[in-house]
């Protein structure tokens, strides 16, 4: 039956109206390229051909990339260690009593939703204001929202595991935790891994922007080069970011292929 507002139409209408409203909120009178902006834009784009490739600067970029990578690795390890048990709790399947399991699941999901709702840089600014500047503050700031998002996705993937193999485990007397460890996690592993790799890629960007609270790394160097208007250096540093992201991508796809084989 044809209806004026079926779901798809309503969706398109909503998206269209939202876009028009946002366009209307821009103050077009003062918006746009500011004086001299056009020239700077051209300068910025041309600076990419070629980027700064002197050995000295490449060494700076490499050191910065290493620093950013270490922060990303540190943050994702905490996020996984915290997110996995919370995600398991969120499935509601870790205790044998179903009512207690459901209560735990609701609690875990709520907690995950709260910690992932605040952006890592907001956490970072607050932590630095509260605890003072330190690398741990930045790493925790990244790890908190990432634990939230990893926990949510882990919970969903672990809950979606087909029930037949789990039933076989339960029939042989496995406890809920054993079902989780020998059933759910191994079966969901490829999915869990590929999502974790994706989030690892995101922590690289998160670690880079921790320059905003004074953490060294690629973002820090980009800020320095921007301040001195050395755009070809900015491009080099951006290419280092691309390099890190591509490396993680490649690693992820090779691991997935290895698991599938």
């Amino acid at each position: 039956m044809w209806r004026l507002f079926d779901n798809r139409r309503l969706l398109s209408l909503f998206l269209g109206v939202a876009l028009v409203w946002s366009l209307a909120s821009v103050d077009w009178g003062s918006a746009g390229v500011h004086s001299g902006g056009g020239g700077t834009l051209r300068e910025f784009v041309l600076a990419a051909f070629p980027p700064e490739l002197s050995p000295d600067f490449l060494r700076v970029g490499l050191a910065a990339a290493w620093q950013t990578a270490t922060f990303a690795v540190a943050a994702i390890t905490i996020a996984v260690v915290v997110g996995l048990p919370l995600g398991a709790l969120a499935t509601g399947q870790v205790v044998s009593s179903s009512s207690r399991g459901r209560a735990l699941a609701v609690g875990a999901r709520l907690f995950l939703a709260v910690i992932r709702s605040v952006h890592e840089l907001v956490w970072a600014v607050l932590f630095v204001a509260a605890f003072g500047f330190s690398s741990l503050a930045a790493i925790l700031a990244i790890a908190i929202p990432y634990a939230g998002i990893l926990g949510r996705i882990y919970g969903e993937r672990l809950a979606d595991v087909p029930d037949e193999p789990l039933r076989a485990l339960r029939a042989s007397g496995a406890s809920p935790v054993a079902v989780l460890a020998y059933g759910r996690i191994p079966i969901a592993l490829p999915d869990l891994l590929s999502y974790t790799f994706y989030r690892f890629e995101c922590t690289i960007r998160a670690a880079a922007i921790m320059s905003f609270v004074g953490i060294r790394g690629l973002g820090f160097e980009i800020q320095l080069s921007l301040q001195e208007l050395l755009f070809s250096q900015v491009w080099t540093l951006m290419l280092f970011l691309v390099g890190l992201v591509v490396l993680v991508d490649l690693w992820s796809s090779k691991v997935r292929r290895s698991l599938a084989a």
Partner: protein
Amino acid sequence: MIRHRETTRNYQRQRQPLTFARASAYGFLLLAAVSWGYILLGTESGVGDLVSAQTWSDAGDFFGRLLGLGSGVQPAYFQGDQWVEKGKLAYDTLAMSVLAIGIAGIGAFLTFLPGARNVSNGGLGGSPSRAGLAVYCLVRWVFTLTRAVPELVWAMVIIFFLSPGILPGALALALHNYGVLGKLASEVVEDIDPAPARALRASGAGGFQMLLYGILPQALPQFITYLLYRWEVVIRTTVVVGFVGATGLGREFRLSLSFFHYTEVGLIILWYLVLVIGVDLICAWLRRLAR
């Protein structure tokens, strides 16, 4: 008996090969150990501060002040005009996030086709061409570059050219999300069932008809799902881009913090949470519509 033992041994040998996945696990553990070592020893880690009582009482004071404890002045929570003022900033922030995801979505929608390998190499019918391959490589490269650079860095670059306001922040968010959405959408097209498109091509459909009837019906719902998912991410990031883009809640957050107007910071965080939770709820509703 002997045979049984042999099978067991074979079985164990089969289970233990050093696959790439296993090597990666060891490799990652090593990387984690080295990274933590570097951070704890080579940077100002702040581990020492964690055991000092002074740090914790200072931190307690800070979070107490955000809530309006012991400041003497009337907290912003009890001033109606403060709610309205920060609400207006939240409204701007929301508009910025919608504009960002709108630009990113339209941009990705216009370019995701040549970014799909099965479109450019003729897997969906049509003939592979060197030009198609070149465009494929170029589009994929642009996706990777825009995606690899975080929104905040794009924002720091863009304020060199654009006047402050909603637009530069929205463009910065849009650039990064364009890369993300473009990559995701291209991969959706690479995974679609090629049969309808090939059948259309074989019965003489043109490129546009093939797109309209062979590709979009399969790819569009997934694209919308990704768009909504990215909007949830964007609303969280819009505040941060406001730090540099000089608009909305982000700018006010930085200003209030540097003027030590703690309860205003608290109020801004409250509005921020309203935005985040509101957008999450709207997206959940829209996803139900898309299904």
